């Protein structure tokens, strides 16, 4: 069993084989770590890849971030959103590009969760709500990578969900011995994602296990739940996981605040539903 697990982990982390990850990503990652790099220099690297630039600008102007005016240059986007958010957008648009075939509806679910994560962060008065949006955007990325790297196992997971009426996460654990949350954690290390994003990706199903930046895990946990209640897209589940009461209260939510959040979600929902980032 342990051997099989290690083998599966290796297969999943052969993520460099994924045809969709743009070569500039490594370059950008290195540049971000170099504190002397300016937004202009990074923007120039991204701008070399025109398809990628167009995708990034499309995402930046999406309902997920909801800027009141159009952002037309990569440099402006970097200044507004920060390097990490831009890198998260590059990873998500690249990986999710193949997603429409790999797991139907997961991209829409992720966009919904990202938008709602941002709305919750704003309603709670937290700074940098975009950081929460990008965590929401990437929270199920492990599911796609499993679907791409282990397609047979993914079929098995889907069958088990239907047959035993269990959650997708429960089925993943039965079939693989680990869930997409674990895969998320490996991927976050592999891509060297910032800690708050990693925490959200790893612990959005059990935020109480997070030791720091737990707010990121908690907000994505609640946003994921709301996205599933609204059935925006398809996460692979037609069964709700338990919404953690402790986390709900901990981040300062109440039903009154939830109603306000829902109002804002409904205001923006048509834009979310009609947004197809191609």
């Amino acid at each position, binding site marked *: 069993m342990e051997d099989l697990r290690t083998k599966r982990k290796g297969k999943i982390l052969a993520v460099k084989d994924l045809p969709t990850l743009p070569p500039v990503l490594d370059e950008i990652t290195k540049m971000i770590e170099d504190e002397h790099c300016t937004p202009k220099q990074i923007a120039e690297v991204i701008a070399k890849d025109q398809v990628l630039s167009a995708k990034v600008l499309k995402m930046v102007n999406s*309902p997920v971030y909801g800027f*009141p*005016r*159009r952002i*037309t240059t990569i440099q402006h986007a970097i200044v507004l959103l920060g390097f990490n958010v831009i890198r998260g957008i590059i990873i998500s648009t690249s990986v999710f590009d193949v997603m429409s075939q790999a797991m139907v509806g997961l991209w829409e679910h992720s966009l919904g969760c990202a938008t709602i994560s941002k709305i919750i962060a704003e309603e709670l008065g937290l700074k940098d709500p975009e950081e929460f949006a990008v965590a929401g955007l990437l929270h199920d990325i492990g599911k796609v990578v499993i679907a791409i790297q282990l397609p047979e196992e993914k079929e098995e997971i889907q069958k088990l969900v239907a047959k035993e*009426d269990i959650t997708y996460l429960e089925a993943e654990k039965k079939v693989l011995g680990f869930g997409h949350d674990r895969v998320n954690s490996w991927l976050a290390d592999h891509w060297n994602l910032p800690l708050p994003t990693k925490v959200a990706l790893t612990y959005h199903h059990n935020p109480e296990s997070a030791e720091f930046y737990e707010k990121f895990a908690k907000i994505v946990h609640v946003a994921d739940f709301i996205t*599933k*209640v*609204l*059935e*925006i897209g398809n996460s692979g589940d*037609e*069964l*709700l996981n*338990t*919404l953690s*009461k402790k986390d709900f209260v901990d981040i300062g939510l109440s*039903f009154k605040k*939830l*109603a306000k959040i*829902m109002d804002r979600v*409904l*205001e*923006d*929902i*048509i*834009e979310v*539903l*009609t947004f197809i980032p191609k």
Partner: protein
Amino acid sequence: MQKIPLDKAKAGMVLAKPVLKENGMVLIAEGTELKENHFSILKKQGIKFIVVKGTPLDLGEGAYGFSLKKRLDRLDYLFRKHQNDPWMQKVKEFFKVYFTYQIKKSKTEK
């Protein structure tokens, strides 16, 4: 207040938020009642969505594949494994009341 695609906007609707140009300048102010001549200006600026007062697109019956009535109908199914959890029943009750209220509201605003 609702964000709607420009092609669904009609004269007589009132802007709940200002429409901004790319440089951040206000193109049309909040509170403006839309007139026919506004639409060509908005199109020319590449504006795709505007925020208007009220809920002109009825989410109760459904628009763009989303319907509050369907949401309400799906609650029992989605919460089916949580029938013995008092907290989750409370959460379900919240959404039930919320969706019911919104459906009613969309009817009266029509």
